[in-house]
């Protein structure tokens, strides 16, 4: 290599105990100061949010070579519909009531079983409706864990309804985790309202 680096070592040993911070100079006032020019050549990239190529089946991945192409769901998902309906086409009805959960729990509470019984009855009386179960958590805990927790809550209700005789093929579940609370105060009453399954339907 062109450079000759003669390593002449000089040991300036600064042996230190704890907090002795010598000459702690003032912090240059840059960190978020406005003077900085817009960085990086990436500015244009936000314009690149072109519509994606439409994926064929809802479970498969789009895009070209080298992209991941998850195969169709397998195994235990057989009890659920094979495709995912548009969640926006579902609406709430007054006859289907929410159920609620204890903190970090997804088992159905005894009192809520009665609500689910009534919901099951309505669904059996209205066999032409498809059901969407939304699982929600409160804001405590953390994002990704709450997404999983909401999923388990929706799944608990689904299993209960199926056991009551509602066809599994009519039911779709979705978890919103902590992302769609009903109320945002930081009180136990508010958190308790948010820890819920919500039920929506649409005609087949």
């Amino acid at each position: 290599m062109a450079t000759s680096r003669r390593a002449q070592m000089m040991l300036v040993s600064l042996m230190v105990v704890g907090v002795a911070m010598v000459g702690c100079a003032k912090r240059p006032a840059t960190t978020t100061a406005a003077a900085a020019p817009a960085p990086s050549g990436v500015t244009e990239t936000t314009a690149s949010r072109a519509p994606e190529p439409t994926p064929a089946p809802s479970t498969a991945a789009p895009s070209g070579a080298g992209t991941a192409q998850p195969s169709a769901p397998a195994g235990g998902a057989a009890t659920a519909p094979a495709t995912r309906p548009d969640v926006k086409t579902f609406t709430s009805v007054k006859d289907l009531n929410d159920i609620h959960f204890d903190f970090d729990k997804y088992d159905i509470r005894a009192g809520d079983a009665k609500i689910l019984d009534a919901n099951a009855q309505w669904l059996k009386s209205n066999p032409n409706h498809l059901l969407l179960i939304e699982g929600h958590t409160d804001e405590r805990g953390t994002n990704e864990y709450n997404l999983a927790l909401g999923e388990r809550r929706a799944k608990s209700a689904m299993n209960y309804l199926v056991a009551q005789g509602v066809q599994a093929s009519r039911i779709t579940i979705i978890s919103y985790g902590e992302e769609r609370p009903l109320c945002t105060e930081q009180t136990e009453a508010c958190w308790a309202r948010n820890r819920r399954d919500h039920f929506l339907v649409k005609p087949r």
Partner: protein
Amino acid sequence: MRRILLCIALVFAVGLLAPWPPPQAPRAQGTDVYLNVTGGGTRKLNIAVPDFTVVAGNDTAGLGKQLATIAGSDLTFTNLFSVVAATGTIPANNPTALRQSWADFAAAGAHAGVHGLLALRGDRVETEMRLYDLTTSDQRLIATRKFELPAAQARRLAHKVADEIVLQFTGEAGVADTKLAYVVGPLGSKEIQMADYDGNGALSVTRNGSINLSPVWSPDARSLAFTSFMKGYPDLYRAFPFERRPEQTLAAFIGINSSPSWSPDGRTVAMTLSKDGNPEIYVLTIANGTMRRLTRHAGIDTEPTWSPTGQQIAFISDRNGSPGLYVMDTEGSNIRQLTSGGFHTQPRWSPKGDTIVYTSRQGTHDLWAINPDGSNPRRLTTGPGDNQGATWAPNGRHLAFQSNRNGRWQIYTMLADGSEQNPVTRGGGEATSPSWSPRLP
């Protein structure tokens, strides 16, 4: 007692380096070093960073001063350096003035000085940094290095200079030339942004009007995996924020598709899918789309994080009643429980491999660290507010995290021992879920 003994040994490597343009010196290998940082608790190296000297072009924007300020801020951030107050600009091509200036800085306590030479050439900007040892009477040149970037990325020149200085003194480059990605926006409408590691120059990564969560940089710093409800359900995507290229779908199975974590080689992504009935951890091989299932348990298994060797994955499971931290081999075997009791989430394996940081809930949330064998759990933050969602800087010395200590969620950074907590974002909205990029290419 978490105070760690520290020994900094400073060894100036002296090279006979040609001036502008210097050949690229081989990076620190073997003996040419350093400042050997073995722990926290420090005595700092005093460094002078006078305004960069303009050697070509017309610096109407005052870039020479800005770059010096930014580089100084980057060096201060490392907690290894103290920046000695500057005394004006060093004139170009005036060795006598330069020597006098360094003598003045040395008298003010500086151990080292960096002189930046700035050339403005239309839409390109180049900088040569010259690093001097001011503890010797002959003010020896320790290193020089030249960087060139598009003018729009001029700020990165200062970051690169700072990173090079850290490399010269410690044997490992700094982390100033990196990005933070994070989530912004109110409930129900969350988008992903990225900014320089110091919060400057925020740019949108997503703009789909949906809920976007959990951005995670790929090991090549070119893409971000993230969860999005953009098609109604929580699916996993990959965005390419530096390219004109649409998002790629990584996983869109029935159920949740979430919690992405890149393997260190960038070839696979561990994730959480519930397609087989409940949240389990899978590994997707990007090139061929094959999906391998790692966990099989009726409880929740989520939040995988790879060890830097790629041999192990830490994750969260509620299999023993409440969420806790577990480690398994990459094949899904040999599961070990690291925490017992409590409520622990968000594990992130350190890039050095020796620590896993995580969030522990005890009323509020705080950050903790634990050794991968389950020993030495230790608290890193103690309020105020909630402190969670940590992400490691690529050198394993710093963490970014989210805190609501001032009422709104914002991104903060701290040293790995929990000290030096400072805000990065100061916007009016909420900023959460930071991911610290690897060093930019």
